[in-house]
């Protein structure tokens, strides 16, 4: 494992020289370390690049780390990872991704993750993205997440991308059976000429299923963001999405939320707001002794916390 990977791992996951629990480290398209545990098996795919993670039914409190790093330009990494979460299991999956290039060549990671959550299982999925390196080569991360939640399953997705990724297209689709819940918290900050697009497509297919989708973003410089979400309620269910964006400098945000209800008891709500930092917020913090710039930083860091 090289030094850049070591640095990236510390930025995108709680790596402190080693991982505690099951892990698979992907470095420049190769496996740089793997460990299974008694309850969590990680094996290579035979038909495509990537891994299969199997969490045994009833597994509680374990964490699986599956970080991926691209440490130089001229690399287009594509990986297919599948996760099978057994009935009643409750685990945390940490899937950070760091891309680094010091030259003019492009560094790119495309991670395609499929989740199959059995009945009453619970997954906390954390994904932190970062781009580093002085190179002019574009740093791109394009994650795809497909989740199938069986009855009573709960998935919490927590995604963060705060700097250095030139372009990202994040596609998330999910299908929820009865009583299944999906909650997504997305935080994005772009600057310069960066572009970030996210697409969500969630189908609420079972009675009393529910989704809560919260996106907070800050677009600085001349960066561009798109937030497109579609929540489809086919039965008695609840769906809520909220997209809040702060513009700084000349940033642009395009929010296109869609709701589709095809059942009288499908309750779907969307809230969206795009604008600069409220003047009253800056004023309040300035009357506490902060400068305008300090106040702006505090408001943004709180907003993206």
């Amino acid at each position: 494992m090289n030094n850049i990977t070591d640095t990236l791992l510390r930025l995108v996951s709680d790596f402190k020289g080693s991982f505690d629990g099951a892990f698979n480290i992907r470095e420049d398209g190769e496996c740089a370390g793997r460990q299974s545990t008694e309850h969590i098996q990680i094996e290579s795919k035979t038909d495509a690049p990537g891994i299969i993670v199997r969490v045994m039914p009833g597994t509680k409190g374990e964490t699986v780390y599956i970080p991926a790093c691209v440490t130089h330009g001229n690399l287009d990494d594509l990986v297919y990872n599948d996760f099978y979460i057994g009935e009643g299991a409750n685990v945390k999956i940490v899937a950070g991704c760091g891309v680094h290039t010091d030259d003019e060549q492009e560094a790119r990671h495309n991670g395609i993750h499929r989740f199959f959550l059995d009945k009453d299982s619970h997954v906390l999925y954390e994904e932190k993205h970062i781009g580093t390196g002085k190179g002019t080569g574009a740093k791109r991360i394009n994650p795809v997440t497909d989740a199938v939640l069986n009855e009573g399953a709960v998935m919490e997705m927590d995604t963060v991308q705060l700097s250095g990724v030139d372009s990202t297209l994040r596609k998330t689709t999910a299908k929820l059976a009865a009583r299944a819940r999906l909650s997504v918290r997305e935080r994005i900050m772009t600057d310069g000429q960066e572009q970030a697009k996210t697409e969500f497509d969630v189908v609420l297919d079972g009675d009393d299923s529910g989704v809560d989708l919260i996106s907070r973003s800050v677009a600085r410089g001349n960066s561009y963001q798109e937030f497109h979400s579609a929540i489809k309620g086919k039965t008695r269910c609840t769906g809520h999405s909220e997209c809040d964006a702060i513009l700084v400098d000349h940033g642009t945000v395009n929010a296109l939320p869609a709701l589709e209800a095809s059942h009288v008891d499908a309750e779907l709500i969307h809230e969206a707001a795009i604008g600069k930092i409220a003047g009253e917020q800056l004023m309040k913090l300035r009357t506490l002794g902060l400068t305008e710039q300090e106040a702006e930083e505090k408001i943004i860091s709180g907003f993206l916390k």
Partner: protein
Amino acid sequence: MLLLQHIAWGLPEGTEIIRDVSLDIGDNKLVVVTGPNGGGKTTLAKLIAGIEQPSSGRLILDGEDITALDMTQRAQKGIAYAFQQPVRFKGLTVRDLLELASGGELKEAVLCDLLGKVGLCANEYIDRELNASLSGGEIKRIEIASVLARHAKLSIFDEPEAGIDLWSFSRLVETFEELRTAGAGTLLVISHQERILSIADEIVVVADGKVRAAGPKDEILPTLLSEEKTARCPLGREEARV
């Protein structure tokens, strides 16, 4: 400690809101500013906090001319201001705000004490976001706590009673009294509440952009109430006795 000398301020289109206000606010005093709605009380408070700049006149804080200082610099000089209508923040928590106000990390016991002063139980609130999930009364009390956290030389409270329930209000009045007893700085409270007026050292009546009356509570309070009776009865106080 704070001198206002011939302060004036108007709207951009020319309407005068504050006209030639001069005031001398003493050290460690509890001064209550009262008067009819729209009379210029909040504007006066904002001029002191630096949120608005006077079109003419000077402000002197402990001998130093602070007229040209902006709100950040005035805050750093020891002026604190509790907004009448507090703003909400998505993401910032009660703890974040109180720590920003005090200028450093706060222990649970200190947070508990600060929130207790406005009738809130700290455990339920310190990690709450300052967003729309808080009621008007809750956000208002947190706003007041954020000013208490500053331990400022001059703390301005703009209608602290607005939106607060009776019980929390009683606690707040006690807090103002405690602060006065402790001699922990000057309090300038904009209020119409008799209970707040009754604990004042001095009362300033602002109406129509001017100081109509200012002086010790015992002098001003009786005239205030008599004026109120007069205002209610078109015949005036004397005739109303009949």
